């Protein structure tokens, strides 16, 4: 399911531009592959990038948010459908987006648009254990690492980028790991090493 979701998001971003792929591997402080890390490339060479603002969903099921980690381009509306029988009170006090969806069930009528770059930590006021992370990025080139810590960025236009990696276990005020990337249309691979320790996927 996780795999399907990644495919979904990546394909959404890469459909218009058929190009080569940048494969990025994310490793933790111990050199182990980090799954569920967000990898994105922000253009630094002034190249224009497309908008990929397709509505995303973060559902609530079994008193959990799913997926745990999501990534969207800034300005993307995100829907929070409740598939549980109980109600949820989804909120965020994160500076990137402060909102609350007071006790509701079913699918809310309107999605929340995340119009600010940053990390949004989502919680449920009545289920303390529920947590989800939404990384709002300023680029259409983003992906999440799979179980082996690999992520594929596709559809990049040639030019210079800042390749960034973020992991939800990083501190709340900690910036994403960043390294330059010069894409020239060919498949290429990159590796990012994080200062945190990876946690296993649940």
């Amino acid at each position, binding site marked *: 399911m996780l795999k399907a979701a990644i495919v979904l998001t990546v394909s959404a971003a890469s459909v218009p531009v058929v190009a080569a792929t940048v494969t990025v591997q994310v490793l933790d402080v111990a050199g182990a592959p980090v799954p569920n890390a967000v990898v994105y490339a922000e253009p630094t060479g002034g190249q224009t990038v497309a908008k990929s603002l397709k509505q995303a969903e973060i559902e609530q099921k079994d008193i959990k948010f799913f997926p745990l980690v999501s990534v969207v381009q800034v300005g993307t509306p995100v829907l929070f459908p409740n598939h549980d029988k109980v109600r949820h009170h989804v909120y965020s*006090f994160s500076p990137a987006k402060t909102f609350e969806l007071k006790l509701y069930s079913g699918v809310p009528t309107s999605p929340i648009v995340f119009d600010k770059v940053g990390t949004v*930590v989502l919680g449920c006021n009545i289920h303390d254990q529920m*947590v989800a992370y939404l990384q709002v990025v300023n680029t259409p080139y983003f992906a999440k690492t799979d179980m082996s810590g690999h992520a594929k960025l596709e559809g990049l236009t040639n030019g210079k980028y800042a390749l960034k990696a973020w992991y939800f276990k990083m501190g709340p005020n900690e910036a994403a790991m960043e390294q330059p990337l010069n894409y020239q249309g060919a498949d290429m691979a990159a590796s990012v090493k994080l200062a945190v320790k990876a946690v296993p996927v649940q």
Partner: protein
Amino acid sequence: MRWHRLENRIVALFIVLILLVQLAGFVAIRKAIDENARASIRDELIIGERVFLRLLEQNADKLTQGARLLASDFGFRQAIGTDDRGTITSVLENHGARIGATLSMLIGTDQQIKASTQAYPSADLQRSALELVTKGADTNGASETVIVDDSLFQIVAVPVRAPVVIGWIVMGFPVDQKLISDMRALSSLQVSVMVSTRGGQWQQDVSTLPKEESGMLMHQLPQKPGNSSFIPQLTIGDNDYSARLLVLAKGSSNQSAVAVLQRSISEAVAPYRRLQLILLTISVIGVVMAIFASAFVARRITSPLRSLADIAKRLGAGDYRARIEIKGGDEIGKLADAFESMRTGIANRELEIRRLAYWDPLTDLPNRVQFATLLNSAIERAKASNGQCHILMMDLDRFQHVNDVLGHSFGDSLLREVGRRLEQQLERENDKVARLGGDEYAILLPATDVTEAIRQAKRILQSLEMPISIGDQTVDLGAGIGISGYPENGQNSDTLLSSAEVAMYVAKRRGSGFTVYDPSIDKSSQESLSLLSELRRALDRNEFLLYAQPKVELATGKVVGAEALVRWVHPEKGFIGPDNFIPFAETTGFIRMLTSWMLNRTAILCAELQKKGITLKFSVNLSTRDLLDQDLPTHFADILTRNQLSPSSMCLEITESAIMDDPIRAQLTLERLHGMGVELAIDDFGTGYSSLAYLKRLPVDELKIDKSFVMNMEHDADDAKIVKSTIDLGHNLGLRVVAEGLETLAVWHLLKQMGCDQAQGYYMSKPMPGDRFIEWLEQWKAPEMPGQSENMAI
């Protein structure tokens, strides 16, 4: 209390033993109680410590819950999320007040204090809060007991999640009186919380003790407590405690906070004290009972012992009447039985001893000792009443002969019979007969004058005139009685007895029946008494000398024999004639020893002469006593054998009176001597009263005419006739006739004419010492015989 008494010793021993046992028990129990109490106090304190810690923990939990409730408040979280500090501070104040926190603050994820109910929280608090946040970062909150501004606080830190941690709420609560009061209610322990100041001095935070006691407690705490520790002994005021020191927090600058849990020892021991009191009571009762029991037992042992000791004392003093009345089969009973048999045994034996001491066992009459006692008391009574008393002392005549001839058992019967007769003669109740010994009796006549005593003596003598028949034997008895009396003859029993004895001897000598003591007879009797001892001494010292007077044959003038005589040369008195001691020796019996001496010496002299070829027949005189001596013939035979003499070389001379004293026995002895072959002669013939018929039967060989006839025959025709007829009589009986007292040659011729065989007298020689006899023999010349003059008229 006298220690040497057995009873007291037993009681003391019991008490000491009981006390030792009780004391040992008491000490052991007390020690056990003490240890038990202390152990239970220690346990109580350990439990108290756990309870106290648990109480603190619960308190902290409660506070944590409160803080956590705040942390999950959506509005509060929203305020934090939007960094609305004013709202945050007011929420902290409001909620803190609600759960009793005196200080509350919010710490951001960047470790900065975002909000605080105190405008300027102390450095202590800030530091403690940040430490606690760090400590609780990985958990869901933490609590800590800390020192803040010299007071003890519990602080808690809980994270604020939205849903990730967006900050920390830290809240602080003072450890207050309520907490320790709860503790006191739960555990019966005294609880004090002390905090040391930066200067190192303890200061009280809160305590269940009164103010002054907790002040005293502070001074006894160690300055720098290391860890939690046990304080076994803590004295505060009048109370002893055991305590546990519990280090709750250590602050900067060496500050520490401790809780002191105290347990009163006296309270803990109180239930045991009651037990001890009961034990003590039991001990006291036990000791008292032991005293009584041991006293009872001891008395059971000692009171019979005491009465036995009393009885023994009385036995020692001679009182045998008290029966011993202690019964029982135990050792004491046996001891009492032994005492009883000892008492009766001693009593019986003493009775017997007394009987032997004061009574004559043969006659059952009082003996000499009792008689002396009775006499003394009679003298005392006479003294008191100015009166008199007399005694008679009696000795039987010839009793010794009777005893020897008729046997001792006859003699004993005779003595008893005499005793009975004497008693029958007593006329008054107080008169007493006693047997003094042998055939000697004494009669006490108290309050009697001499006339009466003489009358009594006569009466007794008269009673003895009647012959006494015992069995088929009849004996004629005579007796001599001496009379003496108080006050004229003596002042005490000894002198009276001895004077009576003297009088008695005189009576016997005189043959007068009785004699009243007179001082004039005492002198001679005194001499007599000393004479006897001197005679004995003389024999020992060889003061006697053997003399001899020759006997010549009248027809030829030849010496044919000699009469052996004894002389005594006293070392002081000089020469003592035989008339002065021989009669005395005869009455006292000493004569037998003297005769024995004479026989010995004469035999020696005779044997000596025979060795020199001179054969002479030596004559020795025998006394009455000698004739009654059954052993004499044997004894004499021994002497002859020893000197290798034939019996015929000696001749024994007996006076008529000696024979007539006891003719039967005298004849018996003479016949035995004659049978041995010894020649016998009748001495002093003509002075006694012997019957010729009797004389005829005697086995004699020689007749010696008494010198009283011979010495005067020269001038007295009667004497000459007597001599002549005696010579004829002797010759007719076939006897040799010897004349004594030949002093002149004319008498020699006369005697020769009368046909007398031999003569002795001063004409030939006075008696001379035996050693000079040979000398005399050598110079003896017989007178010239004036031819045969048988025709010479008488």
